[in-house]
């Protein structure tokens, strides 16, 4: 039955899931139509709400782009690649391989999701070189399953955004330090349960799967071998300007400047983590670990492609937000949510609705932009903790990423697979993970 289900979902996803950018456009048109059908707004009003707020998320778009780019850059440093190669020595059998990849990828995604996605893909390749008889598709799916926990980790867009002093909803919910969101019991419970059980779930899938996709690890060598030519540049050929670019001293000096500020920041402010300081840390760790400015710049150049979608789609999310708020639909939806749920069930509803919205708005930050205002107002109407509601939305966003391919693309590009190769397995993981998250939201 598992197998049938997997095949079925796989076909459906491939046939009906359009690109993320198209979703942004469809949602724009949908909200526009809903606005003048169900509220008093005229089409002209709706256009004005849309265009007026179109550029409201400019800074936020850059913060989100930097999360992906800095994470990607750090994962491609020689230090991290060597560490992954070393870690792969712990896998000797296919069972161990699947469990280890899941665990390592989950931990990496807790640190930073851009980092985790790349680490997961690179680590799968290291492991398959050591354990060639493991099903490579499942291995990459396991790596992607680690992405389930990212929003409860140190790069979680919602908890880090609401920790800023000037975040968009500061007037309704105030600034929430990460000690209440990420390091609250609710989040710790869900993260710990998932990190410990996901390897077992993937192992269980492997035992029940008939798939045996073996690959020749040699074809993946290009991804894991370091750029040797960069390390062995001919010093005699270099102009003085080139030498600066290949100078370790420059990279170390800048890295040191950055790190000294980070130490100073935490010494003065305590554990004040927000999206800006996380991006700052990863940026300077990237410069330091790449050792020369040239290698760092090359890595940034490769990473930037992954931010194109964010930069072009965020204005559309902002426009949608503008129409929702301006037409009064936010208020209507809030009231509807309040009417169908109670104090106990609301967080689960928030989680489920976030899971659905995530299909349309795969970026965690974009999702918060579309949904945050509505759900936080509803939570206040019902007397539910706003932090818990924010985390419910965060988890809903992370949850359906298992069957929304937007974020899998960088990982798949490195592993050389297609969405259809892993989404079948991911659907099973999605079904399982509903339970720990929902239970967490109900009991804490």
């Amino acid at each position, binding site marked *: 039955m598992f197998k049938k289900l997997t095949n079925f979902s796989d076909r459906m996803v491939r046939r009906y899931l359009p690109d993320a950018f*198209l979703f942004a456009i469809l949602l724009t048109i949908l909200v526009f139509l809903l606005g003048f059908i169900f509220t008093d707004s005229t089409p002209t009003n709706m256009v004005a709400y849309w265009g007026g707020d179109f550029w409201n998320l400019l800074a936020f778009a850059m913060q989100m782009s930097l999360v992906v780019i800095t994470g990607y850059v750090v994962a491609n440093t020689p230090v991290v690649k060597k560490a992954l190669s070393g870690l792969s020595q712990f896998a000797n059998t296919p069972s161990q391989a699947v469990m280890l990849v899941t665990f390592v990828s989950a931990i990496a995604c807790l640190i930073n999701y851009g980092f985790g996605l790349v680490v997961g893909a690179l680590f799968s390749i290291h492991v398959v070189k050591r354990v060639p008889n493991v099903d490579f598709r499942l291995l990459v799916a396991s790596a992607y399953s680690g992405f389930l926990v990212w929003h409860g980790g140190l790069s979680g867009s919602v908890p880090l955004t609401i920790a800023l002093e000037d975040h968009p909803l500061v007037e309704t919910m105030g600034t929430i330090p990460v000690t209440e969101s990420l390091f609250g019991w609710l989040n710790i419970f869900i993260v710990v349960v998932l990190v410990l059980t996901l390897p077992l779930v993937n192992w269980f899938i492997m035992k029940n799967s008939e798939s045996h996709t073996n690959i020749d690890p040699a074809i993946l060598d290009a991804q894991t071998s370091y750029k040797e030519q960069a390390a062995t540049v001919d010093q005699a050929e270099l102009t003085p300007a080139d030498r600066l670019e290949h100078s370790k001293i420059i990279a170390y000096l800048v890295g040191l400047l950055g790190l000294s500020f980070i130490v100073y920041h935490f010494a003065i402010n305590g554990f004040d983590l927000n999206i800006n300081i996380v991006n700052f840390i990863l940026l300077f760790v990237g410069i330091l670990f790449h050792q020369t400015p040239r290698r760092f*710049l090359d890595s940034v150049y490769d990473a930037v492609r992954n931010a194109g979608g964010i930069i072009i789609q965020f204005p559309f999310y902002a426009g949608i937000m503008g129409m929702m708020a301006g037409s009064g639909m936010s208020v209507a939806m809030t009231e509807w949510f309040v009417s169908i749920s109670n104090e106990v069930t609301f967080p689960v509803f928030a989680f489920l609705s976030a899971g659905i919205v995530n299909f349309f708005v795969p970026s965690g930050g974009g999702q918060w932009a579309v949904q945050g205002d509505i759900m936080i107002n509803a939570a206040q109407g019902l007397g539910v903790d706003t932090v818990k509601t924010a985390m419910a939305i965060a988890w809903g966003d992370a949850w359906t990423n298992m069957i929304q391919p937007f974020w899998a693309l960088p990982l798949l590009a490195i592993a050389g697979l297609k969405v259809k190769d892993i989404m079948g397995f991911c659907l099973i993981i999605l079904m399982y993970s509903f339970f720990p998250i929902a239970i967490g939201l109900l009991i804490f």
Partner: protein
Amino acid sequence: MLRSISQKFKVGIENYLPSAFIFAILLTFITLILGMTVTGENLFDMTTYWYGGFWDFLAFTTQMILILITGYALVKAPLVHNLLIKLASKPKTQKSAIITVILAAAATGYLSWGLGFVFGTLFAIEVAKRVQEADFRILIAAAYTGTIAILPASISLTAPLLVNTPDHSLQDEIGLIPLSQTTFSPMMLLTAFIGLAVVLFAYIKMAPKKEDVVPYQHNKEDEESLEEISATTTHTTFADKLNNSRIINYALVLLGFLWLILYMINNGGFNLELNIMNFTFIMLGLALHGTPASYMNAITDGMPSASGILLQFPFYAGIMGMMIGSGLITVIAESFASIANGVTFPFFSFLSAAIVNVFVPSAGGQWQIQGPILVEALQTFNLPAEVVVNTVSIGDVTTNLLQPFFVLPALGLAKLGLKDIWGYCLVSMILLFIVTSIIVTVLPIFLY
């Protein structure tokens, strides 16, 4: 004569020109040290100022990247691309190729610097493919220089747009300045059009002799990329059909143009600030690409050329944070006020902007750093604020021929190195510098 000078420069100073990112790093340390020595701050105060400013350009970075990638995507639209190829078939000789490239780059650069750099380069490549007797390198250099020359009058010029955007950073000091005082002012128009004539003359004189010409090298990739554009893929799944749906695409474009009309009614015309430019480009790009999927592909392809902006803006924001936090900015402003007088101020403003631009290549970033200093210095003299905006803009544009920052996307597209074009750019810069020095010094005497 110009030919031999430009050849000599090509093997000269470029060895000592590090990349733009290293510039940003070195400037960070120079500012750090200046802050600690000149204004006597300690290291931790300086790093606090640094971080305090580091993320101040977040929204601005997104705007700048959007200008670049939406310009790129627009050029990649089939209609625009076909027009490009048609135009590129006109010139037959090296001389006509150079003139066509410069004029085309200037025409698009007039609309948007992002468009000019991207369109100019792509156009130069297409021309080079067809005119084998023309030197490829000089065509790429000519395209870049053509855009630079027209920029003082370009409607996308950053500083004039910024000071015309409500809530800009210096609004309390200088208020909103309309474009008629800046971009469309006599100073800017004269500088741009005389500059363009000078550049045309210089490139015709610099063109290499027949035996020295290195033409464009055809390779297989070109033929494939041409086919790729004309090829129509079959859309089998429902998801594919949606991604390539023209109805959804044009519904959105319609919405976009409705907003533009509404915007024009509300603002009494087309107020060309960054956001409305980007908005127009997105909608035009979508309209001309025909489908969301095609547009998104073009955007993704354009992204790597934005990596420099994305990475360096935070560093320039950090430098600015240190300049303001440590009080260095006041020190500089005061020393400027003390050496300039009412007549020489415009020239000093121009000169300082030209020098600072070597270190702070982004026009917007530079305005953020220098604007406050010069506006403060201006208080002493009986000159209007737009003099600062205009002279800083011109100075900033001129040394972009020396500083490699903005030519990087062009070099990436043309697959050339800086040394291939740098000699031509430097000669043009020297000529432009002389011409504009005269204009900015003499013109204000008659105007104010």
